[in-house]
Each structure stands twice: as C-alpha cells, then as structure tokens.
C-alpha cells in the first residue's frame, strides 16, 4: 500500500470523526510517513511500519473526546426528507400526465409527436398548484444552503 492509499483508507475508517478532526489526523499521518520516507525508508515500508489500519483507527477513536465525534444530523435528515416528499409531489403528476399522453397518442395514433410535450405544458399550466411549487423551491434551496454551509464549517 502506498501513502495515498493508506490515507484514503484511514479517512474511510475515521468517518465517525468530525470533519476538522479527521483532517488533522490525515495531515499528521501524511507528514509522518513523508518524514519516515525522507529518513531513507521506502514508502511501502513506511506505511507498513504504521501497523494495522483497523487498530490505528480504533486507537484514535477510543482516545478521542466524544465531543469530536460526529453526531446524527437530524436537521439535515428532516430537510432531505421534506425536499424528497415535496419534489415527488411536484414531479409525480407531471410524470403521470406524460405517461398518460404518450399512451393516448400511441393508441390513437392521430396526435402528432409535437403535441405530446405541448399538452404537458398546457396541462401543467392549468392544474398547477403554485403554492406547492414555491414551497418546494424554498425547501430545496434551504436544504442546499444548509449542506453547503455545513460543508464549509470548520
């Protein structure tokens, strides 16, 4: 295993850690392995010297303050579920209409190809619950902002 593979595997094993804390460990091992290599050891050997990955991760996790462990993000979960429900409520009727129109056009065989999309557009406009669309847009945007902010925090 080379250094990059080792660091990648370690990162996966440390996913229970908060992002900032995990980054510090990765940087630390990056530095230490580079230092060992510079002392005249091959990269493979330097990685091997670190011992068993499973054990390293275990040791780090047991020595970590619980405050630095990742907690379940209930706010995020609620936002994602709400977005999913609202989005499916928006898309489902459109999808249904599209399928229905396609069926009709193929079975009757009179309506031209261009009528399919056009009819969806018109049908969409007639029976559109705008409140639902606006609510969906708002919730989706809030969800995106929430996760972008979370990503850049710490």
């Amino acid at each position, binding site marked *: 295993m080379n250094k990059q593979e080792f660091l990648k595997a370690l990162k996966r094993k440390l996913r229970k850690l908060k992002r900032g*804390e995990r980054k*510090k460990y990765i940087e*630390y091992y990056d*530095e*230490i392995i*580079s*230092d060992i290599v510079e002392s005249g050891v091959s990269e493979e050997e330097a990685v091997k010297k670190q011992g068993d990955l499973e054990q390293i991760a275990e040791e780090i996790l047991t020595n*970590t303050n619980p405050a630095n462990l990742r907690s379940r993000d209930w706010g995020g979960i609620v936002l994602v579920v709400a977005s999913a429900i609202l989005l499916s409520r928006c898309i489902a009727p459109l999808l249904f209409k599209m399928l229905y129109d396609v069926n009709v056009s193929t079975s009757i065989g009179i309506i031209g190809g261009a009528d399919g999309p056009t009819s969806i557009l018109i049908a969409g406009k007639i029976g559109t619950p705008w409140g639902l669309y606006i609510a969906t847009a708002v919730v989706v945007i809030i969800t995106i902002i929430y996760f972008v902010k979370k990503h850049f925090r710490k």
Partner: protein
Amino acid sequence: MDRQLRKGLLEFCVLAAIRAEDSYGYKMIEDISPYIDISESTLYPILRRLEVAGKVKSYNTEYNNRIRKYFTITEDGKNSLQEFEKDRMELLKVLEFIAGGRQHE
C-alpha cells in the same frame, strides 16, 4: 509497560520532548521511543489532548514543499512538568514500596 501507567507517563514524555525546543511528530517519536514504547497512533491523540488542555500549541511551517506541524510548550505545559518534578520523590517511594524494597528495614 502497563497500559494505564504508560498512558499517564506519555503525556509528560511528550511535554519533555518539546521542553527545550519545538518539535514535530516524527522527531518526537525518535526522541521518546528509546525510553518508552510510543507509536505514531499513540502520539497524536496525546498531542491533541495537550493542545485542547492548553499545554502545547502548534504552528505550521513549510518544509520540502510540504507542511510540517511544529509543537511548542506553553506556560501551562511547563507548570505541568514542574508539578511532575515535585511528585518525583513521592513516585520513587511508591515504586520502592511496590517493589517491596523496604520490607526488611
């Protein structure tokens, strides 16, 4: 050495390793390992703990086109070492007691 005992001592070993001059991970391990068993994966949690406790501080410098993190001892860290020095006589007595050296006196 016993796990618990080693854990307690290692913190002081790390502080001692940066008492005279700032040091970095690899060098600390080189300096400490002749005296007590220490591995890369034991050192860093100790450094993090000491940092959170305000006994050491860290800063990054560039070395060979990569980042090297140096650790420096704070006043609190120095005080910890001094406290430990004060406990030394007590510790020696305990060690002697455990070893049973005084029984025949």
